[in-house]
């Protein structure tokens, strides 16, 4: 294989390991099938098509590959959830609705290296014996939709798609389905409803676990773009080799997107757990801008709980002793940050420096969640606009100290009580911001803004109205 060179200014950082992103910003590389095949593309598929489908699933299980959409569920295990003895068609859906703020990894794959995804999808479809697959692409990627459609046509012309693929008797049709600008379509059952052409309300689970009752009521596997590319990587390397690399419980490479207040924001592919947040932000991203200090980090997409940079985190060593550290010492794998109450989610790291007002950051997030709530279930539909209105009022200096507690309490009332994980996604930021940066919120409030009972009698009457339980 020839030496890989990258476009000027787009060279990978030495601490990166480019696997999925091997061809991103590569000199002389284009999204055509010719380019992809010259580089060994579709060879893995050919190998896989000679295997038993169950063996591919086993290989993926062995690799320990975990989904890259945010929840981190083991991909191979997900595939085995298709009911035994199923007689209905099986569908595979590629979730390319990349919409978690702070996450911007899949866009590079679908714009610059679409065949990598297609190959991964075909392998996955073969493994679960799906003959119909859908790429659900967000509406904000119109160029990618054109590139992807062209790539699908090319793959079909070369008989990697269509009837009797490579003479194996395996048929597969992949349809590109575009969304229309809704965050909720990133939720897998919302996404399935969007494909079915109904309002993309997430479905209740149980009973609507997609692997059992998914698209058109049939077993459906929903995987993220990066996950499917990783599947190809697993089959290329072998499950054991894949599992041997990186963090034990989340092996392989991870693509991290860094945005916000760092010198060099961008996307970086690293071996999972091979570096810490500190190394990512200082070494790879060049640290804070001149004259500024890091203040807070949202480690895994907008819905992850924010971490203070000066927070002392206590971790237990294997020998039982307690080790004190900060966010900068936490390794970048899928689980380490979860020990400290946040999550590494979809790998979108948003950084804020000391010039930022945290209430304003939260207000921006609250606006996002209020705008994106689908409105199906009561707590989310009514709670999100309330949180947004509250944080706006606090930011405008019209809040009282009680409003800060109220804001947190509204979030508590949403969390864990909704149809889908959006309830957690929207309440975690508020819970974390108001707890960890409480003093900043209080500083914006004035006790005089508190609502006063009209008279002493009303105050007395309220006491009777309030329940005691």
């Amino acid at each position, binding site marked *: 294989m020839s030496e890989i060179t990258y476009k000027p200014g787009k060279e990978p950082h030495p601490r990166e390991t480019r696997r999925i992103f091997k061809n991103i910003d590569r000199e002389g590389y284009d999204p055509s099938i010719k380019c992809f095949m010259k580089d060994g593309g579709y060879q893995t598929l050919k190998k896989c098509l000679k295997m038993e489908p169950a063996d591919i699933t086993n290989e993926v299980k062995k690799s320990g590959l975990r989904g890259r959409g945010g929840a981190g569920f083991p991909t191979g295990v997900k595939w085995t959830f298709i009911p035994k003895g199923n007689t209905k068609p099986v569908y595979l859906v590629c979730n390319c609705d990349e919409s978690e703020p702070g996450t911007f990894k899949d*866009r590079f794959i679908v714009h610059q290296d679409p065949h990598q995804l297609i190959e991964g999808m075909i392998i996955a479809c073969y493994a679960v014996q799906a003959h119909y697959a859908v790429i659900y692409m967000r509406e904000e990627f119109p160029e990618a939709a054109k590139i992807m459609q062209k790539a699908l046509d090319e793959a079909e012309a070369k008989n990697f798609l269509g009837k009797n693929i490579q003479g194996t008797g395996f048929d597969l049709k992949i349809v590109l389905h575009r*969304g229309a600008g809704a965050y909720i379509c990133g939720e897998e059952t919302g996404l399935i409803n969007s494909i079915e*052409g109904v309002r993309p309300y997430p479905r209740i689970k149980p009973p609507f676990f997609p692997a059992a009752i998914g698209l058109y009521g049939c077993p459906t596997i929903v995987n993220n773009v990066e996950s499917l590319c990783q599947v190809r990587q697993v089959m290329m390397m072998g499950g054991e080799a894949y599992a041997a690399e990186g963090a034990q419980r989340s092996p392989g490479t991870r693509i991290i997107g860094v945005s916000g207040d760092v010198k060099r924001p961008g996307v970086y592919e690293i071996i999972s757990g091979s570096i810490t947040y500190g190394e990512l932000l200082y070494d790879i991203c060049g640290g804070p801008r001149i004259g500024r200090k890091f203040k807070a980090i949202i480690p895994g997409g907008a819905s992850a709980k924010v971490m203070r940079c000066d927070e002392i985190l206590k971790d237990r060593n294997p020998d039982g002793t307690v080790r004190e550290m900060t966010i900068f010492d936490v390794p970048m794998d899928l689980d380490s940050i979860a020990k400290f109450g946040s999550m590494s989610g979809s790998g979108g790291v948003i950084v804020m420096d000391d010039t930022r007002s945290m209430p304003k950051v939260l207000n921006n997030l609250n606006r996002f969640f209020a705008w994106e709530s689908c409105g199906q279930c009561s707590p989310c539909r009514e709670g999100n606009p309330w949180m947004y209105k509250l944080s706006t009022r606090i930011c405008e200096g019209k809040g009282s100290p009680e409003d800060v507690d109220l804001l947190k309490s509204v979030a508590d009332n949403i969390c864990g009580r909704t149809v889908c994980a959006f309830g957690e996604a929207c309440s975690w930021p508020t819970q974390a911001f108001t707890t960890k940066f409480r003093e900043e919120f209080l500083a914006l409030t004035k006790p005089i803004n508190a609502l006063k009972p009209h008279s002493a009698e009303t105050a007395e009457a309220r006491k009777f109205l309030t329940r005691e339980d």
Partner: protein
Amino acid sequence: MSETPNAIDAITAPISSPGEKFFPKFEVTPELVAKAQELVALYPEGKEQSAVLPIIHHVQEEFGYVSPEAMPWIAEMCKSTPIHVAGIVTFYPGIHRKCPGKFHFRVCRTIACALAGGEELLPYICSKMGVEPSEMTDEEPMVVSPDGLWSLEAVECLANCGYGPNVMVNDTLYSQVTRGKIDEIMAACKKELAAERKEAAAAKKEAAAARREAKAAAAAEATETTEDESATKKAAPKKKATPKKK
């Protein structure tokens, strides 16, 4: 009487927009029906409703937006009901119920772009377009300039967070956008429009010439019926040439 429509009638109340002059009016043509049928065929049999978003996207590409007249037609095409289509159209912010301008600007306002200064671009773009920022509301997030050339919408995350502020103009994404870059983009848009207009004018002129010629030929044909065949032969290739030119 200009009563404000009730909340239900508002679903199909037309929202006039200066952008309409840059797009054809919604019309059901055999080509449009064929395209819709082609999109329906992408999905398994009996699942025509799945094509509702693809058909909406196509309508939006052709006509700029989903007008009230389009909704029942879309419903018919994907074997659904108008209220169902209305439920879809009113749900997704990516589906316009009002015609955007010739150049539709989408400015990301979500956290990463906001940290990079995305929201500060909005008033600037508004002033360049000649619209009031206060016109952008939750219910009507899109503003269109009086000349119909521009429209602006603040949107949520465009998924290019590391390179904010991000602005999408029609299908093209611009990242790390500054005021200066906005000026450049708008200048380029204007240039594109001028080129398009010039081309359209030339095409129109040619078409007119072809029409004149055909008319003359027809007149000649009327007087000299014997030359009937040669006249049509002469006119035919000319007519075809016009659209083929590009």
